[in-house]
Protein backbone atom coordinates (compact mmCIF):
# COMPACT_ATOMS: atom_id res chain seq x y z
CA UNK A 1 0.00 0.00 0.00
CA UNK A 2 1.41 3.39 -1.01
CA UNK A 3 0.36 6.64 0.58
CA UNK A 4 1.95 10.07 0.45
CA UNK A 5 3.23 12.12 3.37
CA UNK A 6 0.03 14.19 3.54
CA UNK A 7 -2.09 11.06 4.06
CA UNK A 8 0.43 9.74 6.60
CA UNK A 9 0.29 13.03 8.53
CA UNK A 10 -3.51 12.92 8.46
CA UNK A 11 -3.51 9.34 9.86
CA UNK A 12 -1.07 10.34 12.64
CA UNK A 13 -3.24 13.35 13.45
CA UNK A 14 -6.31 11.06 13.77
CA UNK A 15 -4.33 8.76 16.10
CA UNK A 16 -3.19 11.68 18.23
CA UNK A 17 -6.72 13.11 18.41
CA UNK A 18 -8.36 9.85 19.51
CA UNK A 19 -5.59 9.13 22.05
CA UNK A 20 -6.23 12.53 23.62
CA UNK A 21 -9.98 11.84 23.73
CA UNK A 22 -9.45 8.42 25.36
CA UNK A 23 -7.23 9.98 28.04
CA UNK A 24 -9.77 12.74 28.71
CA UNK A 25 -12.66 10.26 28.79
CA UNK A 26 -10.72 8.07 31.27
CA UNK A 27 -9.98 11.07 33.50
CA UNK A 28 -13.70 12.01 33.40
CA UNK A 29 -14.73 8.45 34.36
CA UNK A 30 -12.40 8.40 37.37
CA UNK A 31 -13.06 11.98 38.46
CA UNK A 32 -16.80 11.46 38.09
CA UNK A 33 -16.74 8.65 40.66
CA UNK A 34 -14.77 10.85 43.09
CA UNK A 35 -17.15 13.75 42.53
CA UNK A 36 -20.20 11.60 43.29
CA UNK A 37 -18.62 10.41 46.55
CA UNK A 38 -17.57 13.91 47.65
CA UNK A 39 -20.95 15.28 46.58
CA UNK A 40 -22.83 12.78 48.76
CA UNK A 41 -20.56 13.56 51.73
CA UNK A 42 -20.87 17.31 51.21
CA UNK A 43 -24.65 17.00 50.95
CA UNK A 44 -24.68 15.13 54.27
CA UNK A 45 -22.34 17.72 55.84
CA UNK A 46 -24.57 20.67 54.94
CA UNK A 47 -27.78 18.89 55.99
CA UNK A 48 -26.12 18.06 59.35
CA UNK A 49 -25.04 21.73 59.70
CA UNK A 50 -28.63 22.84 59.02
CA UNK A 51 -30.13 20.39 61.53
CA UNK A 52 -27.50 20.85 64.24
CA UNK A 53 -25.50 24.08 63.73
CA UNK A 54 -23.71 23.72 67.10
CA UNK A 55 -22.08 20.46 66.04
CA UNK A 56 -21.34 21.52 62.45
CA UNK A 57 -17.56 21.56 63.04
CA UNK A 58 -17.50 17.90 64.09
CA UNK A 59 -19.73 17.03 61.14
CA UNK A 60 -17.30 18.58 58.67
CA UNK A 61 -14.30 16.82 60.25
CA UNK A 62 -16.21 13.55 59.76
CA UNK A 63 -16.91 14.51 56.12
CA UNK A 64 -13.21 15.15 55.39
CA UNK A 65 -12.05 11.95 57.13
CA UNK A 66 -14.67 9.88 55.28
CA UNK A 67 -13.70 11.59 52.01
CA UNK A 68 -10.00 10.84 52.42
CA UNK A 69 -10.72 7.21 53.40
CA UNK A 70 -13.12 6.86 50.45
CA UNK A 71 -10.54 8.30 48.06
CA UNK A 72 -7.90 5.86 49.35
CA UNK A 73 -10.35 2.95 48.90
CA UNK A 74 -11.47 3.96 45.38
CA UNK A 75 -7.94 4.68 44.13
CA UNK A 76 -6.62 1.08 43.75
CA UNK A 77 -9.91 0.13 42.07
CA UNK A 78 -9.43 2.94 39.55
CA UNK A 79 -5.79 2.04 39.02
CA UNK A 80 -6.63 -1.58 38.24
CA UNK A 81 -9.25 -0.50 35.69
CA UNK A 82 -7.42 2.35 34.01
CA UNK A 83 -3.75 2.17 34.92
CA UNK A 84 -4.05 5.75 36.18
CA UNK A 85 -3.03 6.49 39.76
CA UNK A 86 -5.63 8.77 41.35
CA UNK A 87 -4.16 8.97 44.85
CA UNK A 88 -0.67 8.89 46.28
CA UNK A 89 1.20 10.35 49.24
CA UNK A 90 1.89 13.63 47.40
CA UNK A 91 -1.83 14.07 46.75
CA UNK A 92 -2.55 13.47 50.45
CA UNK A 93 0.13 16.04 51.34
CA UNK A 94 -1.32 18.53 48.83
CA UNK A 95 -4.82 17.99 50.23
CA UNK A 96 -3.67 18.47 53.84
CA UNK A 97 -1.71 21.61 52.86
CA UNK A 98 -4.78 22.92 51.04
CA UNK A 99 -6.95 22.30 54.13
CA UNK A 100 -4.33 23.88 56.43
CA UNK A 101 -4.16 27.08 54.34
CA UNK A 102 -7.97 27.20 54.25
CA UNK A 103 -8.18 26.78 58.03
CA UNK A 104 -5.47 29.40 58.59
CA UNK A 105 -7.29 31.89 56.35
CA UNK A 106 -10.83 31.28 57.53
CA UNK A 107 -10.34 30.62 61.27
CA UNK A 108 -7.14 32.35 62.34
CA UNK A 109 -6.93 35.31 59.94
CA UNK A 110 -10.55 35.76 58.99
CA UNK A 111 -12.62 34.73 62.04
CA UNK A 112 -15.40 33.87 59.59
CA UNK A 113 -19.01 33.43 60.70
CA UNK A 114 -20.61 30.00 60.05
CA UNK A 115 -22.33 31.44 56.95
CA UNK A 116 -19.05 32.84 55.65
CA UNK A 117 -17.37 29.47 56.37
CA UNK A 118 -20.10 27.71 54.42
CA UNK A 119 -19.38 30.03 51.50
CA UNK A 120 -15.59 30.19 51.72
CA UNK A 121 -14.89 26.43 51.52
CA UNK A 122 -16.91 25.70 48.35
CA UNK A 123 -15.41 28.80 46.68
CA UNK A 124 -11.91 27.70 47.74
CA UNK A 125 -12.39 24.11 46.53
CA UNK A 126 -14.13 25.10 43.31
CA UNK A 127 -11.49 27.70 42.45
CA UNK A 128 -8.78 25.01 42.47
CA UNK A 129 -11.13 22.64 40.65
CA UNK A 130 -11.75 25.25 37.94
CA UNK A 131 -8.03 26.00 37.54
CA UNK A 132 -7.22 22.26 37.22
CA UNK A 133 -9.97 22.09 34.58
CA UNK A 134 -8.02 24.47 32.34
CA UNK A 135 -5.55 21.59 31.84
CA UNK A 136 -7.66 18.42 32.12
CA UNK A 137 -11.03 19.29 30.60
CA UNK A 138 -13.60 22.03 30.22
CA UNK A 139 -16.25 20.02 32.12
CA UNK A 140 -14.30 20.78 35.31
CA UNK A 141 -14.37 24.51 34.48
CA UNK A 142 -18.11 24.48 33.77
CA UNK A 143 -18.95 22.57 36.97
CA UNK A 144 -16.57 24.70 39.09
CA UNK A 145 -17.84 28.06 37.82
CA UNK A 146 -21.50 26.99 38.11
CA UNK A 147 -21.08 25.98 41.76
CA UNK A 148 -19.14 29.20 42.52
CA UNK A 149 -21.95 31.30 41.01
CA UNK A 150 -24.73 29.40 42.85
CA UNK A 151 -22.76 29.59 46.12
CA UNK A 152 -22.50 33.38 45.84
CA UNK A 153 -26.22 33.65 45.00
CA UNK A 154 -26.92 31.62 48.15
CA UNK A 155 -24.64 33.79 50.30
CA UNK A 156 -26.20 37.07 49.21
CA UNK A 157 -29.84 36.14 48.57
CA UNK A 158 -30.82 32.99 50.49
CA UNK A 159 -31.81 33.58 54.11
CA UNK A 160 -32.00 31.03 56.94
CA UNK A 161 -32.05 28.02 54.63
CA UNK A 162 -28.48 28.74 53.41
CA UNK A 163 -27.12 25.36 54.55
CA UNK A 164 -29.95 23.54 52.79
CA UNK A 165 -29.34 25.62 49.65
CA UNK A 166 -25.67 24.65 49.81
CA UNK A 167 -26.52 20.97 50.35
CA UNK A 168 -28.29 20.97 46.99
CA UNK A 169 -26.02 23.44 45.17
CA UNK A 170 -22.65 22.08 46.35
CA UNK A 171 -23.44 18.46 47.25
CA UNK A 172 -26.08 18.03 44.56
CA UNK A 173 -23.99 19.96 42.03
CA UNK A 174 -21.01 17.65 42.54
CA UNK A 175 -23.22 14.54 42.22
CA UNK A 176 -24.87 15.79 39.01
CA UNK A 177 -21.47 16.87 37.67
CA UNK A 178 -20.02 13.42 38.46
CA UNK A 179 -22.93 11.62 36.77
CA UNK A 180 -22.60 13.90 33.74
CA UNK A 181 -18.87 13.14 33.48
CA UNK A 182 -19.54 9.40 33.64
CA UNK A 183 -22.34 9.36 31.07
CA UNK A 184 -21.80 7.16 28.01
Amino acid at each position, binding site marked *: MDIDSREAASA*LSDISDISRR*VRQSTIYQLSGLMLIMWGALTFAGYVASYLSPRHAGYGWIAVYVAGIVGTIVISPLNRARSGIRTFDIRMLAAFLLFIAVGMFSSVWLGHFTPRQMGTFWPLYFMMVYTIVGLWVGLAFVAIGLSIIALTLIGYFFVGGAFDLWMAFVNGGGLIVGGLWMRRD
Partner: protein
Amino acid sequence: MAELDDIIHQPLRLKIMAALNALPAATPGLEFSRLKKLTGATDGNLGAHIETLAKAGYVAVEKAFVGKRPQTTVTATAAGRGAFARHVATLQEIIAASERQP
Protein backbone atom coordinates in the same frame (compact mmCIF):
# COMPACT_ATOMS: atom_id res chain seq x y z
CA MET B 1 10.77 1.07 4.39
CA ALA B 2 8.32 -1.26 6.17
CA GLU B 3 4.89 -1.84 4.66
CA LEU B 4 1.75 -0.27 6.08
CA ASP B 5 -0.65 -2.74 7.70
CA ASP B 6 -3.69 -3.02 5.37
CA ILE B 7 -5.94 -4.21 8.19
CA ILE B 8 -5.11 -1.31 10.52
CA HIS B 9 -4.92 1.42 7.87
CA GLN B 10 -8.69 1.52 7.15
CA PRO B 11 -9.84 4.80 8.86
CA LEU B 12 -12.31 3.33 11.38
CA ARG B 13 -10.03 0.40 12.27
CA LEU B 14 -7.17 2.89 12.74
CA LYS B 15 -9.36 4.83 15.20
CA ILE B 16 -10.32 1.63 17.05
CA MET B 17 -6.70 0.53 17.37
CA ALA B 18 -5.59 4.06 18.39
CA ALA B 19 -8.25 4.18 21.11
CA LEU B 20 -7.34 0.73 22.47
CA ASN B 21 -3.61 1.49 22.35
CA ALA B 22 -4.11 4.71 24.33
CA LEU B 23 -4.85 2.51 27.37
CA PRO B 24 -2.03 0.87 29.37
CA ALA B 25 -1.45 -2.80 28.39
CA ALA B 26 -2.44 -4.34 31.74
CA THR B 27 -5.86 -2.68 31.90
CA PRO B 28 -9.20 -3.96 30.63
CA GLY B 29 -10.12 -2.63 27.20
CA LEU B 30 -12.95 -0.33 26.18
CA GLU B 31 -16.65 -1.07 26.31
CA PHE B 32 -18.40 -1.17 22.94
CA SER B 33 -20.58 1.84 23.84
CA ARG B 34 -17.54 3.95 24.81
CA LEU B 35 -15.69 2.90 21.66
CA LYS B 36 -18.74 3.82 19.60
CA LYS B 37 -18.82 7.29 21.13
CA LEU B 38 -15.08 7.82 20.72
CA THR B 39 -15.02 6.76 17.06
CA GLY B 40 -18.40 8.22 16.06
CA ALA B 41 -19.29 4.95 14.26
CA THR B 42 -22.67 3.22 14.00
CA ASP B 43 -23.30 -0.07 15.85
CA GLY B 44 -23.20 -2.19 12.69
CA ASN B 45 -20.13 -0.53 11.19
CA LEU B 46 -18.19 -0.69 14.44
CA GLY B 47 -19.15 -4.34 15.01
CA ALA B 48 -18.03 -5.33 11.51
CA HIS B 49 -14.64 -3.65 11.82
CA ILE B 50 -14.05 -5.07 15.31
CA GLU B 51 -14.73 -8.51 13.83
CA THR B 52 -12.11 -7.90 11.12
CA LEU B 53 -9.56 -6.89 13.75
CA ALA B 54 -10.48 -9.89 15.92
CA LYS B 55 -10.02 -12.29 12.96
CA ALA B 56 -6.54 -10.82 12.44
CA GLY B 57 -5.77 -11.48 16.11
CA TYR B 58 -5.35 -7.75 16.83
CA VAL B 59 -8.18 -7.43 19.36
CA ALA B 60 -9.96 -9.72 21.81
CA VAL B 61 -13.71 -9.40 22.33
CA GLU B 62 -15.29 -10.37 25.64
CA LYS B 63 -19.04 -10.49 26.18
CA ALA B 64 -20.49 -10.51 29.68
CA PHE B 65 -23.57 -9.47 31.59
CA VAL B 66 -23.39 -6.59 34.07
CA GLY B 67 -26.60 -7.10 36.01
CA LYS B 68 -29.12 -7.73 33.24
CA ARG B 69 -27.30 -5.62 30.67
CA PRO B 70 -25.03 -7.29 28.11
CA GLN B 71 -21.63 -5.65 27.90
CA THR B 72 -19.04 -6.12 25.18
CA THR B 73 -15.44 -5.21 25.98
CA VAL B 74 -12.76 -4.91 23.30
CA THR B 75 -9.06 -5.19 24.22
CA ALA B 76 -5.93 -4.86 22.07
CA THR B 77 -3.89 -8.07 22.06
CA ALA B 78 -0.09 -8.12 22.28
CA ALA B 79 -0.01 -8.87 18.54
CA GLY B 80 -2.36 -5.94 17.92
CA ARG B 81 -0.23 -3.55 19.97
CA GLY B 82 2.89 -4.67 18.08
CA ALA B 83 1.20 -4.27 14.69
CA PHE B 84 -0.12 -0.83 15.66
CA ALA B 85 3.32 0.34 16.84
CA ARG B 86 4.87 -0.83 13.54
CA HIS B 87 2.10 0.89 11.57
CA VAL B 88 2.69 4.19 13.39
CA ALA B 89 6.46 3.87 12.86
CA THR B 90 5.88 3.36 9.13
CA LEU B 91 3.65 6.45 8.94
CA GLN B 92 6.39 8.46 10.67
CA GLU B 93 8.99 7.05 8.24
CA ILE B 94 6.88 8.17 5.25
CA ILE B 95 6.77 11.72 6.62
CA ALA B 96 10.49 11.72 7.46
CA ALA B 97 11.37 10.41 3.98
CA SER B 98 9.34 13.15 2.27
CA GLU B 99 11.12 15.79 4.40
CA ARG B 100 14.52 14.43 3.30
CA GLN B 101 13.65 14.81 -0.39
CA PRO B 102 15.04 17.98 -2.01
